[in-house]
């Protein structure tokens, strides 16, 4: 199929609305056509920009409490003799509703952060230049970041391991510049993100393993930096790379 035909289907493809047969055909086309791949990448970036900019407003805690108290429960007339039991029960209910609101908010925020990192991983790999410093030598890659990001970090010696360093680039997460390193293991590429561990988005990420958009992730903090490993390899391999980085 010609590029013009695929052009009209890119949005539906990126919105996950294309039929499975067309999706796999377009996947194949994007691997072969740099121009359509660049177009797709631009659209992904526009989607991400809107998704990030659109999450703009949070309800005040006063309003949150108001909805938790009144919004969800019908009022009932109750006899005074029940009030002795009803008051503690209502308190438990309010606490549980407020707690579940908080949990839902935290989970949604965490999932958004994971999805954004998975998007950065995919966008870099889909780019015509996935890395800006192309080197498997950690002594070349590490100094390249000097002056580009507001922190320094150490990289592990990978000799004897299955991992190869492909290079690095500067990435932005929650408006903060950080290091994006790309490693290879067999035929898989794995991203390692390093950001300063401040700001709600990064500190909100829990340490440990996670799964988002069919990618495996592992995150931890070390020396004031938040590390996140993202890839489509199995969690054991993600953990192995994490271990090497923690030991560096």
């Amino acid at each position: 199929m010609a590029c013009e035909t695929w052009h009209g289907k890119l949005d539906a493809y990126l919105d996950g609305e294309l039929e499975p047969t067309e999706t796999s055909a377009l996947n194949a086309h994007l691997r072969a056509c740099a121009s359509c791949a660049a177009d797709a990448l631009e659209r992904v970036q526009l989607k991400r920009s809107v998704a990030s900019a659109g999450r703009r407003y949070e309800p005040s805690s006063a309003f949150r409490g108001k909805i938790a108290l009144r919004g969800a429960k019908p009022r009932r007339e109750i006899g005074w003799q029940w009030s002795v039991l009803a008051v503690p029960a209502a308190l438990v209910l309010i606490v549980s509703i407020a707690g579940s609101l908080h949990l839902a908010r935290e989970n949604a925020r965490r999932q958004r952060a994971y999805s954004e990192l998975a998007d950065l991983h995919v966008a870099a790999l889909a780019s015509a230049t996935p890395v800006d410093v192309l080197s498997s030598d950690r002594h070349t890659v590490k100094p390249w970041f000097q002056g580009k990001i507001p922190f320094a970090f150490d990289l592990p010696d990978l000799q004897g391991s299955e991992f190869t360093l492909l290079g690095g680039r500067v990435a932005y997460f929650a408006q903060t510049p950080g290091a994006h390193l790309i490693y290879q293991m067999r035929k898989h590429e794995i991203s390692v993100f390093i950001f300063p561990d401040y700001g709600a988005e990064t500190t909100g990420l829990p340490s440990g393993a996670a799964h988002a958009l069919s990618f495996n992730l592992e995150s931890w903090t070390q020396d004031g930096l938040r590390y996140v490993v993202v890839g489509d390899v199995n969690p054991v391999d993600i953990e192995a790379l994490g271990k090497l980085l923690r030991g560096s």
Partner: protein
Amino acid sequence: MADQSLPAATFDDLALPLFDQLYNFARWLTTDTSEAEDLVQETYAKALRGFPSFRAGTNFRAWMYRILRNSFLSTRTGLKTAVAFDEEDPELPQLVESSTPESLLLEQANRQVVQQALDGMPLHFREILLLCEVEEMSYQEIAETLSIPAGTVMSRLFRARKALRSLLQQKLPGGRHGV
């Protein structure tokens, strides 16, 4: 019809996790904090009243958003904002061609500029972009929320994205790509 024997907590289980998202959407629609709070409160009250008639198996999230949006449109602010529009939108600014790669534009784009661009868009474009990108709704869910055919969702989204690109391009100093 909803199963009348469902425990009372079911509405809470479904509706409370949507609270933050509904507020964000309401705030974008109303552009005012207290109006957004009133709108969310009204939405929850209406949804709770209407919950017995909510059909199990249909999309609860789209149902809640539809209630919110319809409540908004029936207010004075909503009526004023939702001016009648032509699906073709002949007056939209045309996309400016440029040699700068679009990816550069978007890499440079900061959140605030995109927010300003969204603020400057007509309501029907702003809401469909938010439902698709922020709420990550399927075309079917958007169609249910906005009460429009699925085909219209696709064409309106296309025009909304085109308009957004055009607005972002205009924000670049010198009228080039980028923000």
